[in-house]
């Protein structure tokens, strides 16, 4: 999921490239063919995808932090094991996506360095804090729910390695979503205190989750190329509406109230939500969310403190290779 920031596609520089190749490329896209790593592709397509896939990977990795915050405090051993397995899955998604991005010619190290330098983005949602156990349920239910909404269409993305990665990721996300909903269900069937905890979490996460789909279509100027290249299949607002329509009945079943008094169901059955506070969204993207600094600091700390370990592994591998060569020469 977590692809909101991708709506800043490259300016179209295909004019500089072979017009015939570009036309042929577009014909393949229009015929729903998959583009593979060794195929010719416009530089802007490569660049857009590298950014989108790496942002997605960064989001998976940074996303480990808010949920990881509760692993040591999970309220039962069953919940602990499930949460740890889930966060481990997110890490696996990150690795898988970095590998997909590498097929476009940029190394994982370069991509990670760009993120640590603050040059690459990750999903805004992970800049909000997890304050109670109900936040873990809410993230599974809503954040992973929104992720699935975003990612299902990406399973048909024109770039083969990304599309294939998304198929696997979606399966796991769907499991996470059910797990999150089950946490919410348990809380909502529990004590008044637990139910209040669940409602409070929904109140805090609802609007940030709606922002995950990115800016409204009216102000989003960059989706055209992505749509033409069949990277993006639905607009931000379309996906957001689908998500809201799917989520409202789930909240009703839980007996929770969506924190939007202005929400109404229209004649077509769609739940119309109130105006989203886009100023908050912009602030979070600009680095001013409640946890931006903490998240970056945690990732940089892990990276810096792990440097000697990575150096040791590299040094050992080099020594071993050298010894083998020396042995072979004897």
């Amino acid at each position, binding site marked *: 999921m977590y692809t909101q920031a991708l709506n800043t596609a490259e300016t179209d520089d295909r004019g500089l490239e072979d017009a015939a190749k570009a036309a042929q490329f577009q014909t393949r896209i229009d015929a729903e063919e998959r583009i593979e790593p060794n195929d010719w592709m416009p530089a802007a397509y490569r660049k857009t995808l590298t950014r989108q896939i790496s942002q997605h990977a960064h989001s998976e*990795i940074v996303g*480990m*932090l808010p949920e*990881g915050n509760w*692993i*040591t*405090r*999970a*309220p*039962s*051993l*069953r*919940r*602990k*094991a499930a949460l*740890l*397995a889930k*966060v*481990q899955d997110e*890490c*696996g998604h*990150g*690795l898988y996506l*970095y590998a997909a991005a590498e097929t476009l010619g940029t190394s994982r190290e370069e991509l990670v360095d760009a993120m640590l330098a603050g040059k690459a983005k990750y999903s805004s949602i992970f800049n909000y804090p997890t304050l109670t*156990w109900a936040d873990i349920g809410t993230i599974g239910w809503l954040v992973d729910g929104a992720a699935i909404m975003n990612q299902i269409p990406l399973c048909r993305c024109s770039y083969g390695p990304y599309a294939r990665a998304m198929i696997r990721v979606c399966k796991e996300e769907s499991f996470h979503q059910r797990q999150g909903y089950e*946490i919410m269900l*348990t*809380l909502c069937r*529990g*004590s008044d*205190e*637990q139910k209040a905890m669940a409602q409070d979490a929904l109140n805090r996460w609802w609007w940030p989750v709606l922002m995950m789909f990115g800016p409204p279509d009216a102000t989003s100027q960059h989706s055209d190329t992505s749509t033409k290249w069949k990277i993006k299949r639905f607009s931000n607002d379309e996906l957001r509406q689908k998500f809201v329509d799917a989520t409202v009945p789930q909240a009703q079943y839980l007996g929770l109230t969506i924190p939007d008094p202005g929400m109404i169901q229209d004649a077509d059955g769609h739940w119309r939500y109130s105006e989203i506070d886009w100023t908050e969204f912009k602030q979070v993207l600009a680095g001013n969310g409640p946890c931006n600094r903490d998240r970056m600091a*945690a990732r940089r*700390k*892990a990276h810096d*403190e*792990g*440097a*000697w*370990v*990575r*150096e*040791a*592994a590299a*040094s*050992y591998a080099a*020594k071993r290779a050298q010894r083998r060569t020396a042995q072979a020469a004897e």
Partner: protein
Amino acid sequence: MPVVNIEVSETPLVLYALRRADDALILGHRLSEWCGHAPMLEEDMALSNIALDLIGQARELYTYAAKAEGKDNDEDKLAYLRDVRQYRNLLLLEQPNGDFAQTLVRQFFYSAFADLYWRAMMTSRDTTLAAIAAKSEKESAYHLRHSSEWIIRLGDGTDESHARAQAAIDHLWAFTGEMFAVDDGERALIHADIAVDPGTLRGRWLTTLSEVIGEAMLKLPQNDWMQQGGRVGRHSEHLGHLLSELQSIQRTFPGQTW
């Protein structure tokens, strides 16, 4: 409603299962602290995976302890509602993660033991323990391979990694003796072929250690003084902090279902 610690009737069999369950949970907890903070993503995955194995072992052993006790306790009450003095894990396993070298040396010392121990326990006359041992042995064989490879990489890597690995070995060595100690209750289980005598495994454990540490160009300490106390609830100061975190929700919201 005040949250009181549960009482556990520690018959030799209950105590036996609790000790191993606490070992697995406390080490699993420590490893889970790395999740999201490891030196590389592959190690986030690996350490979480090992933690998951250990938490799984803990759940089976707690459930068995509760069954053997035959009262109202269950895996969560045993994990969440006993205080420091009631915990029975090895001191080694509650030691803080420290740097990556300290975490991996702790893991190596323990996995080299656990692998031998669970393999021997597969022939226990207690069929539940034998089944838990069979599963745990498969897992600990992987844990041992993972930690051995890292000990060698760190020892034979850079000057810094070598120094850090040696410092971790020197620091943690005094906590290894406890793995091989046995009290009277456990002695009775050993005589009944329910448990195995860990003391008989020490020679092979030392052989594993010497091989790996030798290849890593590191040294085992000469110091023979060993710390003890974990098995009877005399812990380091670290465990109380670990438990206050682990148990925080259960202690704050007593008696609820999660």
